[in-house]
Each structure stands twice: as structure tokens, then as C-alpha cells.
């Protein structure tokens, strides 16, 4: 196995708000190896985006505080980097594609200005590029995301492009600076099915071509299935299950993953599962122990007191649930 590219260990992120402290992330453990495509699945408000923003250090602090945990990129802690090192990471190593391309692009600058800025700040050779070189590179990346008529697109404002085209521009900007890791924060969610399909295929191809790792965040399990090698399932600020993608879809173990998979309407028909009762807990006063226990039908007394660590069920499958504490007996307390 290759060395981990990105490793998050026991990350806690809290937010100070008027009513108290929102304890959003509660010990997140997350590993990405180089060349790996990792999916992160969970419902709205479970902390997926917060985790990713913490990686890029995009959280505004305050209100956010990180009381515990480390984020290691190639062995170096991002949380303890100085500004110059951090900029280096953002310029050359990690880039992020946001959920809503309309909000990610500045409406008062042309696409050209924005892409060329990205090119200028991410010059890898260390020397200053000439104007026409920058433009040539901008056109080249637009070609890569198969946007037609690149010269015209460079002169357009974001509002003149359609949603799919805007998302392609965002991907091209991520490609300019990346990289070793691309974080796709629900890159298709605001788009239509046919367009989403195109965008995700494109992302997959480009990742293969440039040999980059991908973290793909989504609340739709189907999207993750075709794109990734392994999947993390997240619930209320902690990972609950980790498995190879195929394994997870065939045998989900955690009650939450099972409920989630059963709730998805199938193309083959046959009705819809029951769904999961209740909703995500309030973060000001989250339940003690396993945060899923108030909604869990198989909850045991131990679930109310102790937070379950990851139990290794098989080679490719780990689950944070006390139902599996005797399984194989190989408990890894990450």
C-alpha cells in the first residue's frame, strides 16, 4: 500500500455561537492515499463540507475553533503551517471544486481574468510567466474540460454561461493549480442529471490523466458508486463506516448506512424503504456516546455512554458500531 497522502486524525471542529458551542466535528479520522479516489457520503448538516474546509483552512476562525486533531498532508500538519507554506499547498497541491459554481465565480470579473489569475498565482516553475503564455495556458485548460470556443468563453462573464459551463470553468481552475489532490464538494448537485453525468465523467477522466487523488463529497450514494475506490459514511460529525465501494453497497453494516441505502428509491421499482425516523442531532447539546443512538433501532445500553471506535470487520471494511465489537476481535482505536 502506498503512503497516505492526506491523513486526518481525531479532528474536532467547534463553532462558537450565541447559544453556546456547536460541537460539529467529533473526532474525524480520514485517510487518502495517493492516486486513490475516496467518497464521503452523508446527509445535509453532518459536517462533510466543514471537514473539507478544515483541510484547506478555509474556516473562518473565530467562530470556528479546532480544539483537537491534526491534518497531515504528506506528514506535515496543515493546521500548524505558516501562511507561506499554506499558500504553497493551496497553489500547487490541493484544490477544491465547490458545490455551487454560480457562487464560486466572481460575477464582476470575466472568466478570462479569473482563470488567468489562477494561472498567474500557481506558476509552478517559479519564474514569472509572460502574458501570452498565461493566456495560452488558460485556453489549454479550458480545452481539457471540453468547453467549445475558448476565446469567447474567456471574454464572457459568469452570468453569460450556463450552469454546466460554469462548473466546467471551476473544474478547469482547479486543474490549473492542482495538483495532487482535488476535493469535489458535491460538484454536480446543483446541475441536472444529464449535465451532472457529463461533469462527473469528465472529472474521472481528468483525474486518471493527471494521476491525482480525488475526494468526492456527495449526499447521493449513487454518484459515489461509479466514481470512487473507497467510501466513508459520515453521520453527525464522525465517520461511521469505511469500506471499499463495492463492499459497502453490497453489505452495509452500520445501521445508519443500512437505513440510508434502504431509503434510496430504486429504478427497478418495488416501493421505497421506511426511511430513518428523527433527524440529525442539535450540535449544541449532542447525545452522549454514539451520536446515532436516539435514531437507532438496534441501540444497546453501551451506545448511550461510550463513543464506538472503528471495529475492523474484514480487510476492507471498518465500522464504528458496538454491534460489531466482537467481530474478529480486532479493535483499532484510531
Amino acid at each position, binding site marked *: 500500500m502506498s503512503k497516505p497522502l492526506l491523513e486526518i486524525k481525531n479532528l474536532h471542529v467547534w463553532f462558537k455561537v450565541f447559544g453556546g458551542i456547536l460541537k460539529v466535528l467529533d473526532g474525524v479520522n480520514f485517510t487518502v492515499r495517493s492516486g486513490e479516489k475516496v467518497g464521503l457520503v452523508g446527509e445535509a448538516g453532518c459536517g462533510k463540507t466543514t471537514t473539507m474546509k478544515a483541510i484547506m483552512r478555509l474556516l473562518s476562525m473565530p467562530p470556528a475553533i479546532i480544539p483537537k486533531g491534526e491534518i497531515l498532508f504528506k506528514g506535515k500538519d496543515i493546521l500548524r503551517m505558516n501562511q507561506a507554506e499554506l499558500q504553497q499547498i493551496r497553489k500547487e497541491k490541493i484544490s477544491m471544486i465547490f458545490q455551487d459554481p454560480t457562487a464560486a465565480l466572481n460575477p464582476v470579473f470575466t472568466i478570462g481574468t479569473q482563470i488567468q489569475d489562477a494561472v498567474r498565482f500557481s506558476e509552478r516553475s517559479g519564474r514569472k510567466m509572460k502574458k501570452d503564455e498565461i493566456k495560452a495556458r488558460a485556453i489549454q485548460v479550458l480545452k481539457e474540460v471540453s468547453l467549445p470556443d475558448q476565446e469567447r468563453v474567456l471574454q464572457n462573464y459568469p452570468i453569460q454561461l450556463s450552469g454546466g459551463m460554469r462548473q466546467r470553468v471551476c473544474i478547469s481552475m482547479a486543474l490549473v493549480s492542482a495538483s495532487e489532490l482535488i476535493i469535489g464538494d458535491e460538484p454536480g448537485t446543483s446541475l441536472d442529471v444529464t449535465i451532472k*453525468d457529463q461533469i462527473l465523467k469528465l472529472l474521472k477522466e481528468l483525474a486518471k490523466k493527471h494521476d491525482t487523488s480525488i475526494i468526492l463529497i456527495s449526499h447521493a450514494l449513487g454518484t459515489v458508486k461509479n466514481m470512487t475506490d473507497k467510501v466513508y459514511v459520515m453521520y453527525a460529525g464522525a465517520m461511521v463506516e469505511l469500506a471499499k465501494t463495492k463492499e459497502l453497497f453490497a453489505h452495509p453494516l452500520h445501521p445508519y448506512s443500512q437505513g440510508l441505502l434502504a431509503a434510496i428509491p430504486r429504478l427497478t421499482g418495488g416501493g421505497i424503504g421506511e426511511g430513518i425516523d428523527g433527524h440529525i442531532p442539535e450540535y449544541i447539546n449532542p447525545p452522549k456516546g454514539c451520536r446515532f443512538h436516539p435514531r437507532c433501532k438496534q441501540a444497546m445500553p453501551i451506545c448511550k455512554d461510550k463513543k464506538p471506535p472503528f471495529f475492523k470487520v474484514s480487510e476492507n471494511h471498518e465500522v464504528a458500531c458496538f454491534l460489531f465489537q466482537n467481530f474478529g476481535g480486532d479493535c483499532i482505536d484510531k
Partner: protein
Amino acid sequence: MRLPVFYFRILVVIALTNNILLVDQLKKHFFTYQGIVKAVDGINFFIKEGETFGLVGESGSGKSTVAYTVVGMYRPTKGKIIYQGDKDISQDSRKRPLALKKEIQIVFQDPGTSLNPSMTIKDILELPLKVHNIGKNHEGRINKVKELLEMVQLPMSYIYKYPSMIGGGEKQMVAIARALATNPSLVLLDEPTSALDVSVQAKLINMLIQFQKEFNLSYLFITHDLSLMRNVASRVAIMYLGKLCEIAPSSEFFKNPLHPYTQMLLSSIPVISDEEEALKPKKIISTGEIPSPVNIPPGCSFHFRCPKKMDICSREDPIITEINEGHTVRCHLYTK
């Protein structure tokens, strides 16, 4: 010997089930500075009593405009909407009698914006009761509100809460309760679950299906999620740029999609199991984007993106042809 019995059954079915809604050549055009937007451009469909009719399409295809026109928020540019066989409701909604307004209700996409943030849940649910004179006095109405809350399985304590204090799924439950408050017979569901998570969605859909059986409701179900459609709708229509491409019974539709756009849509859905993967048409790869509705291309509006494009497609708009019983498609591939 079997054949006559079969035909007899069909006749009985036709005689017994009336169409609750008939939409005939409905057009809704908007006049803007950029030009005329043909949001809905001549569509025909009918909804039988007690069935769920699904309307699917990408954003900007005019699905919501259809619902808004039927409920009376827009006045149709042309065409007829007939309710229960004899009541024409295509005129101005101000001329629509109160008794008919009560019969057709709508649930909007985003419960965050469709519920008034400065009204309590009680006020929200009481308003339609007041308008339609249901429940004689205040006490009667409060009792009815409590009944409604119980029906959607929300606790009584919610009665004095504001929409901002409850979750997204619960807000949508309130919106559904509000729509059902007047005891309607046709409910228009405009993407009722697209703002919600799957686990909440499942609960809500099951509840809607239960209400349909209980109160004999008919639904016009609008969504962009085809796998959801497969599980709720009995008949499905696909909409593209203001026109219907294909209408078919739901099981037939997913087994044997005919229109290239339908095939493209089906092949783009992300699915989670191998059996579903096997259902998807393989050869169609999604290309291009939905054009601006101001400049609809001449001929068939889909021909730019169509993998099976022929010469005729860029010149002539295809007409609707019936392939099997109840399965109609608007494509030159199937016209003789």
C-alpha cells in the same frame, strides 16, 4: 373466448374512471425583453382519478409552469384545462369559483420559502380553513388543525412554533398538511422532496402514498428524479423545452424507453445496484445542454443533443404518435 372479456373490462374501466384533469394544447408564453419564452408550448395529458401522474424534466423545461397554470397562478396563453370532465378552469383564476379552488391544491418545492416565517404553524394551517369556511368557529378550526398535525405525525407542541424552529422535512409535512386542509381531490406536488435528504424523503413519500389511498387523491407529481418517479407514479411524462417527449405507463416506460432524450436521461442516473445498472440503456452518452428557452431551435427542439439525429429533425417538429396502448412518443424515429 378471453378476448371479449378483456375488451369488456377495458370498457368498464373507461366508464368508471373519469379523468379528473384534462389538459388540452396548453400554452404558456412569457414576454420578456430578450424575446418570447415559450415555457409551455402545446402539451396534452390527462390524469385519471386516484392515480399519480409523473412529470419529469430538467430545470427550465417548464414542469413547474404546468403546475402553476393548473392551480391558477398563471393564466394560460392558449389551450384548455378541464377539471372533472366538465369544468373549464383555464380562465383567469379570479373568476374561478371558491369551491373549485378548494379542490386543487399545491405543495411547493422549498418549504423554507413557501411557509410564511412570521406565522405560527397554527396560523399557517388555519388560513385555508378560514378562507374556505371549514370549521364553524375558532374552536372547530383549532380541532381541525390538531387533526391535520396528527395526520402528518407531528407533535401537538408544534402548534405554536414558527417554521424556522422546525426541520426541513417537518416543514414540508406542514406544507402537505396545509394542502390537505381543504380536503382536495387533486394535489400538485412540485418537487416536494428535492430539498430533503433521502431518509426524510422516504418517510414523506410513504406518507403521501398512504394519504392517496385514504382520501382517494390524485397527484400530479413533478420531479427530476427518475428513480423516485419509478416508485410513485403510475404514468410518466417526460418534458423537454415546453413539450412532452414521451408518455407511458411507468413499468413500460423504464423497460422500453423510446425517445432518445428519455434514453439519455435514464442512462445518466446514478444508481446503487447492479440490477438497476442492467436496466439503463448503454449506448447513449449524454452530450450538450438544454438550450435557452428564448431561442428554441427549429424542428425538433432536442435535435442538437440527439445521437440519432436525422435530416428531417432540424426542419420539422415531430408529431405525437402512439406506439403501444398508452405509450406515446414525439420523435421522427417512430413516425411512418
